[in-house]
């Protein structure tokens, strides 16, 4: 078997175990939170009688271990179950939410990843001169501002003052792609500003590190121009660390954007998870948690495989 296929198979098997461990941990922690779904739903309006009735209806009167294994049995047969709070099918709800999250993440990544790498290359080419300083200054400033602050600033200028883009991302499947893109213009802009700096700085640092090598000097002595040296000799050797950072940021775009979702009232996974945690809707929390964990695991596997492929020494181990 090719070593890479073996590695991926191993990683996937380990990932599965990790997912089960993560689900047990999430279940335990959600159970440890004060209150349960019945109390969270009834809130200030709870009476001992209505609490008991609601608990019985949700099956919360059974021991936690039973409930966990029932859930595990369900998910292994592909059944995510129904939400405790509103009895809606979790798989259907997640499908719509996940599609929205991926839609937002896709467009943010599509713009931000190439942009970050190009800016990183430019920064290296003009290292310590004004383009480098300007790129670093702007991206570091945007990452240093809290994302909701950037969001509010963009909303104020582009939605309230100029009416260029809607202030909240009201998307539905009946809209055309262009209308949908218009609706998510501001959240995508915020996400780009948030993830740009990390990837740009990593690209810059990784390539600068390679630039110290002897073969770069050789390339320069051959008479190659600055950009040719970077593109042909430095960049390929810097891909592994860059891909790692890109993957971390992609994972962030999928699982970490709840604040942006709230500010733009965007119906993604983050908001769904937060609501479920507040209402102690354990099956939904578990489903979201496992999906988020899976996203991290898969992106990490991709990052590893890509770094092996781009490094001949790892690709052909002795």
């Amino acid at each position, binding site marked *: 078997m090719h070593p890479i296929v073996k590695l991926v198979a191993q990683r996937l098997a380990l990932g599965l175990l990790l997912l089960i461990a993560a689900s047990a941990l999430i279940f335990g922690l959600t159970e440890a*939170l*004060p*209150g349960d779904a*019945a*109390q*969270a*739903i*009834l*809130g*200030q*309006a*709870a*009476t*001992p*009688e*209505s*609490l008991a*009735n*609601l608990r019985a*209806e949700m099956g919360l009167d059974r021991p936690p271990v039973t409930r966990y294994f029932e859930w595990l049995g369900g998910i292994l047969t592909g059944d995510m179950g129904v*939400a405790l*709070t*509103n*009895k*809606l099918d979790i798989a259907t*709800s997640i499908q*719509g*939410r996940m599609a929205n999250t991926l839609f937002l993440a896709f467009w943010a990544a599509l713009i931000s990843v190439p942009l970050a790498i190009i800016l990183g290359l430019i920064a290296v080419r003009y290292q310590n001169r004004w383009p480098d300083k300007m790129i670093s200054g702007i991206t570091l400033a945007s990452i240093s501002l809290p994302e909701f602050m950037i969001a*509010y600033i963009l*909303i*104020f200028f582009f*939605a*309230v003052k100029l*009416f260029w883009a*809607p*202030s*909240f991302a*009201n998307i539905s499947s009946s809209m055309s792609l262009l209308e949908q893109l218009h609706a998510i213009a501001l959240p995508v802009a915020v996400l780009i500003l948030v993830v740009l700096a990390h990837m740009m700085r990593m690209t810059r640092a990784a390539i600068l590190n390679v630039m110290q090598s002897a073969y770069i000097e050789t390339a320069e002595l051959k008479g190659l121009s600055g950009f040719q040296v970077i593109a042909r000799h430095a960049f390929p050797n810097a891909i592994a660390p860059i891909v790692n950072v890109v993957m971390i940021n992609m994972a962030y775009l999928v699982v970490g954007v709840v604040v942006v979702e*709230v*500010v*733009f*009232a965007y*119906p993604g996974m983050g*908001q*769904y998870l937060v*609501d*479920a945690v*507040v*209402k102690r*809707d354990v099956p*939904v929390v578990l489903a979201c948690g496992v999906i988020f964990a899976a996203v991290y695991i898969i992106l990490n596997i991709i990052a590893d495989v890509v770094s092996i492929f781009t490094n001949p020494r790892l690709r052909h181990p002795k």
Partner: protein
Amino acid sequence: MNDKLEYMSKTVTAGKMTRREFMGKAAALGVSAAVASTMFADAARAAGPVKGGTLRQGVQGGESTNTQDPALWASDVPIAGGRHWAEPLLEVGPNGELSGLVAESYEASADAKVWRFKVRNGITFSNGKSVTSEDVMRTMERHSNEDSKSGALGIVKGIESMRTDGDVFEVTLATANADLPYLMADYHLMIQPDGGFDNPAAAIGTGAYILESDEPGVRQVYKRNPNYWNNDVAHYESSEVIVLNDATARTAALQSGQVDMINRVEPKIAQLLDRAPTLSVQNVSGRGHYVFIMHVDTAPFDANELRLALKYAVNRQELVDKILRGYGGVGNDMPINAAYPLFDDSIPQRTYDMKKAAEHYKASGHDGSPIILRTADGAFPGAVDAAALFQQSAQAAGIPLEIKREPNDGYWSEVWNKQPFCCSYWGGRPVQDQMYTTAYLSTADWNDTKFKRPEFDEMLLSARAELDNAKRKEIYSKMGSLVRDEGGLILPMFNDFIDAVSNKVQGYEGDPNGPMMNWYAPHKTWKA
């Protein structure tokens, strides 16, 4: 100039002048924008409701865990949505008057124990089935039977028996209650086919709109019900409830014209927002109140002198000015204000009095150890700041308060009704009886001050059965004074509902029963 303006107003009423034209011409005549805006609104209102269009309400208080089962509604978005597709028997109007929805009329026996509600003739549910008194009875059964988890369980508990008689639904109460019709207007008690037993969340009711799509925590879309029984209301072709939980997102959506109305404008920005020319901020004083509650059965709050000391040590006006920014009124340590029918305004208003607070504190013999007040951001908007202000004003009277900040998460299950001294809020009820029954009767589940006084319970029951309003008012006055002087409630302020409404929406009228015209905005407003 007046003739000219009058002529312009008439043109608007006739539908021959747009808002932009009117404002422009009015400005040329030297009329300020605010005055012109009001004049335009008046003229447009005189033209009468316009049919069609879409109302988009941006509403705080929706989660992806929401359901369409009326028994479980607790936050604003499900209630706003429910007003579209469902109706209770009766409606309480802005001035406290009752009018019929599913019930056409109602009558009581002389002792107010037996109530008969006549179901409106010929109305149908949105699935085409006609509404019978049987459906009404099954609805009440679902909310009151022993499996009930309904938020209205406390309201329907007093029902002894129910029966139907042709198109009449008859309720017999265990004890007389002159206010029963008000209770039947509760938003949980939506009439559903067969009481909603088979599918409580089916969203099938008798409402003026029909649910078209529902994404919990995102939006609900409704279209006009062509078979609705009342053609004088519900003018929109379609209506949307859009969940906007973030305060800034909500105001931005209104300012950018993506929604037409929003609820819960933050008091601190209300005045700034009102300056925007395309909208107006609307506040209405309601019955909701923000409170500090003490358990009268737990030391040190079992000493009435200490309770009085704390009541005198809170600076009510300061709280209204700083926490509510003036959007509210001072409270008098009883849960009733002028928004209630039969309110006695002759009860003296308690004010901040350092000297009296210090005297009572001394008389209570308290050992001087810090008194712990629990608070959380979610207890009510500004609760943490309000607690800090209370701490300072109490400090000035020599009473040591210590603030313990609790997490929002689990506040209602772990702190409220469990800890002896904490911040909380009440939404208020349509009538005094219901407010007192919910939280001040000895046996009430939500008696969050542990106020248990047999003489109070007796007065409550006698007032409930009393059909003579003058006598009732007298009893309520005594009850109010008893809670004010001996209860565990510190009630510094009643909060206003603050909505903001686009100028495109006509017919807005404040309703003390709830925000957004008690959520009847899709029924009672229209777009000019």
